[in-house]
């Protein structure tokens, strides 16, 4: 089985601020799937989207309460095309209200840096050079 698209749905306090944050990171918005209750961030056209829903709207899709931000249910690791892109994204995120929760890690074949977004969702940004993946 192969999927053709993924939408990672995450709850947020403020849709407008969330939209500004992700726009500043350099991503575009799918306006067709965005309104005052949700913003759809295009991570990879036609394939990978992050949907940020206000808590009230998010709540309509689950019978459990929304996490209060004191736990972590998911870590989202996203791959970009260079180390420079990794660091640029993390830097921009922190300048715009994100925060740092771990130090960059250099595994040789993979470089990784991370930020916690405006809403406390944690993103691991990485550049992987699969040709350098160590073989056992």
């Amino acid at each position, binding site marked *: 089985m192969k999927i053709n698209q993924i939408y990672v749905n995450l709850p947020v306090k403020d849709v407008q601020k969330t939209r500004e944050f992700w726009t500043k990171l350099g991503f575009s918005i799918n306006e067709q799937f965005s309104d005052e209750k949700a913003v759809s961030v295009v991570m*990879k056209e036609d394939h990978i989207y992050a949907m940020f829903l206000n808590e009230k709207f998010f709540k309509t899709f689950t019978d459990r309460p929304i996490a209060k931000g004191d736990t972590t249910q998911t870590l989202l690791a996203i791959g970009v095309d260079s180390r420079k892109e990794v660091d640029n994204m993390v830097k921009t995120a922190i300048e715009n209200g994100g925060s740092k929760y771990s130090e960059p890690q250099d595994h040789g074949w993979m470089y990784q840096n991370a930020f916690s977004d405006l809403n406390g969702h944690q993103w691991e940004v990485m550049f992987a050079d699969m040709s350098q993946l160590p073989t056992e």
Partner: protein
Amino acid sequence: MKINQIYVNLPVKDIQKTKEFWTKTGFSINEQFSDDKAVCVVMSDNIYVMFLTEEYFQTFSERPVPKGDTTQVLVAIGLNSREEVDQVVNAAVANGATQHEEPQDYGWMYQNSFWDINGHGWNVTFADMSQLPTE
């Protein structure tokens, strides 16, 4: 900015059971990124879900793993037909998942959903974008 791949990382109680569950649901495993602490489920060429033991997951976050009584994320995945949607949800439920909402048919989009064996919520969809209503 464009990303080239995504790994959705989720904590689980039992790697082996999680691996069996997702295999039975119809997905393949990337063995290169799987071991006794993690299983990497291949959703497409650039979309992966990594299930990590709670102990291992915990090493990546300074906040505790939730106890399954809250929701921070719902993952929606798109398949190629209504039949595939129902096939995946039926296989999931037959292997220990629970049905979440009743299937919903919006005409241009068909959706079914389940909570997996670790309590993570999945919306499984088939969308025919050519039928998306225009305003």
